[in-house]
């Protein structure tokens, strides 16, 4: 949550250019003299000309927060959307928790932003009522104006000074959803016009006067360190101005990016390394260790009944192993950050999903206090969890320090980005199902084995680790008498991070595919078995979350119906489905229609039904569903593998992301809900793979249990 301590305050005069150099809206006129503003809280400011600046406390990375969050404020304030200008917050006393991830941007700010807007609206109304000397209750607001009981009408801009002098209401009334004019309607992306004209400024587009560019030569093995190097040939490259040692490697500094990259190439040829312990790490060994861990001791994530006993007693036991590889975030904009150090402090421009942490870690690297480091959050060319890490921004601070202060932009190239990603780790899954003589499912056991993201992230084992790594597996929603889900950690040396959909992606892939196996084994329709075992359950508690199984059942029914589940398909075509209650907050189901012909898999269509509570912007929701499905489908064919401690894959050539021609038609159905908004960025992702692979089974009778998919088997 955004910290509320400084939530309500009156700021009389503008601090012009809150995010100097990063203003994205053409409507702002840089250099305009500071005029009085009405800014009752950190989220908004009304100017005398009636324009309203809204400050977004979360990072835009394509998920649409620079549209959705301002819409919430604008709705409560009754603004004219055309007069809204949007800027990004800077981490600091007003914005102490800007971390953006986990599909929480709307849900975590919804209450605060509504109140922020309502506060301003009530104060503007009160200012108008006082000016007209009429009863406050007889006034109303509409599209940036206060309207009085007669024909009085005043724009918000005209009320700036008067409103700023009024007391701040403690509990302003919030609008009823019935009266919404902006929320729940389709609003195109705020940054669209700047994006299509090339004006949008991403981290890599930041240009400061006198800026230099740097490329860092890093060991391809995470434990490696340079032992000796000769900078001579690098310095001969025209444009290269310096070569400096930093904790992560050796930085080549130049007047332009190309010279920095070229200089680095020369330097690489003249550098020797001590590679350290991780040089023995490889995927084949890890797989052996993971397979051993599938049957060794594990930590319990969920225990319901006695699954082992029930498996022994079962008339029939099914067992399967599922496998999911390391993955890369592969954002199209590679990591980068620009840093300038001045006598009084430092300034950073970067696309960060963790601006506060970027500020703290850069400050620590520079020997400064966090408040001495101003962090300007740039637009992000794809985050997906990668930019929750602050490795790249901290490194840029170190480079700037070593190179005399900057401004300096540290640029990663595509190979850096693949090699030094915070990869999402591989897992193996052992699933067992017990059936009684009638074919009823009596026991379910799911063992997950793999490296722990949480362990890597916090640097030590924590009690919640098992719940994090088993997310998506432990909350299997089906009513089965005995369930056991556990996790066995397997050590691996490279730094890890979450990607879009987190551990839920591999865990739900294994769970929903194996469930499909069970359905086919007992001769039941996979939809029917799911509906039967969702049954009449209501609220069910799983680990830290509680899910409403009725909502899950509903989305499953809607997706199946809209996709025409059960209809007759030509030979070689099939439908497959999957469903999940994401963190007990967002409910989603997907049905994939595929065909397999001559070893070619074609995904024709994915039908998705979601219930994520109230939908702030349906246009944004649909984009997230399409994008989430694309992200999930890409993972059918991508993997990162390790050899001698480094990634085999160094570019998109070896990491075949979905291309336009592979993209299926996506149909999105929203199950209307009166619940508060819950989140949509990640929930569509984990269902794509199991829906497709279950459809492949329906089409071909071949069960694929390993990602990346090997089509030669079918």
């Amino acid at each position, binding site marked *: 949550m955004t910290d509320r301590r400084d939530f309500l305050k009156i700021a009389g005069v503008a601090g012009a250019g809150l995010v100097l150099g990063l203003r994205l809206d053409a409507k702002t006129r840089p250099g305009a003299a500071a005029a009085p503003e009405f800014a009752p809280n950190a989220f908004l400011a009304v100017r005398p000309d009636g324009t309203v600046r809204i400050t977004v406390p979360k990072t835009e990375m394509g998920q649409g927060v620079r549209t959705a969050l301002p819409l919430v404020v604008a709705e409560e304030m009754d603004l004219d959307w055309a007069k809204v200008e949007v800027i990004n917050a800077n981490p600091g006393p007003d914005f102490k928790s800007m971390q953006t991830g986990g599909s929480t941007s709307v849900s975590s700010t919804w209450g605060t932003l509504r109140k922020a807007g309502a506060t301003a609206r009530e104060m503007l109304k009160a200012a108008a009522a006082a000016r007209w000397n009429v009863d406050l209750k007889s006034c109303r607001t509409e599209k940036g104006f206060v309207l009085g009981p007669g024909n009085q009408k005043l724009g918000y801009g005209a009320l700036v000074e008067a409103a700023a002098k009024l007391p701040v209401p403690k509990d302003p009334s919030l609008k009823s959803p019935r009266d919404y004019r902006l929320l729940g309607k389709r609003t195109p992306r705020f940054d669209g*016009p700047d994006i299509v004209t090339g004006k949008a400024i991403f981290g890599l587009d930041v240009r400061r006067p006198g800026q230099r560019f740097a490329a860092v030569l890093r060991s391809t093995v995470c434990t490696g360190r340079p032992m000796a190097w000769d900078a001579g040939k690098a310095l001969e490259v025209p444009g290269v101005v310096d070569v400096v040692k930093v904790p992560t490697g050796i930085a080549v500094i130049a007047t332009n990016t190309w010279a920095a990259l070229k200089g680095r190439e020369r330097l690489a040829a003249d550098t020797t390394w001590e590679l350290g312990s991780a040089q023995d790490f490889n995927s084949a060994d890890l797989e052996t260790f993971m397979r051993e861990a599938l049957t060794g001791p594990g930590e319990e994530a969920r225990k319901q009944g006695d699954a082992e006993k029930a498996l022994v007693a079962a008339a029939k036991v099914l067992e399967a192993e599922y496998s999911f590889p390391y993955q890369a975030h592969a954002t199209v904009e590679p990591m980068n950050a620009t840093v300038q150090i001045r006598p009084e402090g430092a300034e950073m421009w970067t696309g960060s999903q963790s601006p506060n942490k970027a500020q703290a870690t850069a400050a620590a690297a520079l020997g400064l206090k966090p408040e001495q480091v101003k962090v300007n959050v740039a637009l992000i060319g794809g985050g997906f969890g990668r930019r929750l890490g602050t490795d790249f921004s901290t490194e840029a601070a170190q480079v700037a320090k070593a190179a005399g202060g900057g401004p300096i932009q540290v640029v990663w190239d595509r190979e850096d980005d693949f090699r030094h990603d915070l990869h999402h780790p591989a897992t193996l899954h052992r699933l067992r199902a017990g059936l009684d003589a009638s074919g009823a499912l009596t026991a379910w056991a799911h063992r997950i084995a793999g490296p722990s993201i949480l362990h890597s992230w916090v640097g030590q084992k924590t009690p919640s680790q098992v719940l994090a790594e088993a997310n998506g597996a432990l909350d299997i929603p089906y009513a089965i008498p005995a369930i056991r889900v556990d996790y066995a950690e397997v050590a691996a040396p490279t730094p890890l991070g979450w990607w879009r959909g987190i551990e839920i992606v591999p865990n739900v892939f294994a769970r929903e595919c194996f469930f499909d196996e069970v359905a086919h084994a007992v001769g039941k329709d996979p939809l029917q078995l799911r509906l039967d075992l969702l049954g009449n359950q209501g609220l069910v508690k799983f680990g830290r979350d509680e899910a409403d199984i009725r909502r899950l059942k509903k989305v499953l029914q809607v997706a199946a119906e809209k996709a025409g589940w059960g209809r007759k398909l030509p030979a070689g075509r099939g439908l497959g489905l999957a469903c999940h209650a994401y963190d007990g907050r967002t409910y989603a189901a997907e049905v994939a229609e595929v065909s397999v012909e001559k070893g070619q898999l074609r995904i024709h269509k994915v039908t998705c039904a979601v219930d994520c509570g109230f939908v702030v912007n349906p246009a944004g929701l649909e984009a997230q569903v399409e994008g989430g499905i694309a992200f999930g489908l890409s993972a059918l064919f991508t993997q990162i593998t390790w050899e001698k401690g480094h990634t085999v894959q160094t570019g998109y050539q070896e990491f075949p992301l979905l291309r336009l021609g592979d993209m299926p038609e996506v149909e999105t159905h929203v199950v209307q809900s009166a619940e508060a908004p819950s989140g949509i960025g990640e929930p569509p992702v984990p269902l794509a793979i199991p829906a497709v692979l279950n459809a492949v089974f329906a089409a071909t009778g071949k069960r694929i249990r390993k990602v990346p998919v090997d089509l030669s088997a079918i």
Partner: protein
Amino acid sequence: MPSYQLTVNGRTRTVDAEADTPLLWILRDTLGLTGTKFGCGQGVCGSCTVHVDGKAQKSCQTSLKEAAGHSIVTIEGLSKDGSHPVQKAWITEDVAQCGYCQPGMIMSAAALLKRKAHPSDGDIDEAFADHVCRCGTYPRVRKAVKRAAGGVK
């Protein structure tokens, strides 16, 4: 350092840089035209697509020497005010997510529609085969191209 002349968005520019410098970095670092994006530098993501004499070309795979003497159009020069039919269609279809890959996509779309006013789905697949959008804007890209079809002169 050698000196080269090229036309960028209708303006003649003289740049002093090494012959092998990719056009991408001339645009971004020398001329300050950051709308053209760096995604891979390996010719496989399409983010750096510009028009060279009216044809879509990857600026990371085009050296300054090759670009010299030619007419280059970048996203900043596609129209004065975002009024190119492809840009308008992009807004109408609300294509962009993070937006990073989009200038390259738009430049490819504009070049495609210039050579083929009404492309088939297969033509569209082919024109974007070298473009990566990690955000998954593909369905809307296809819709936007179809919307703009026929409108590009």
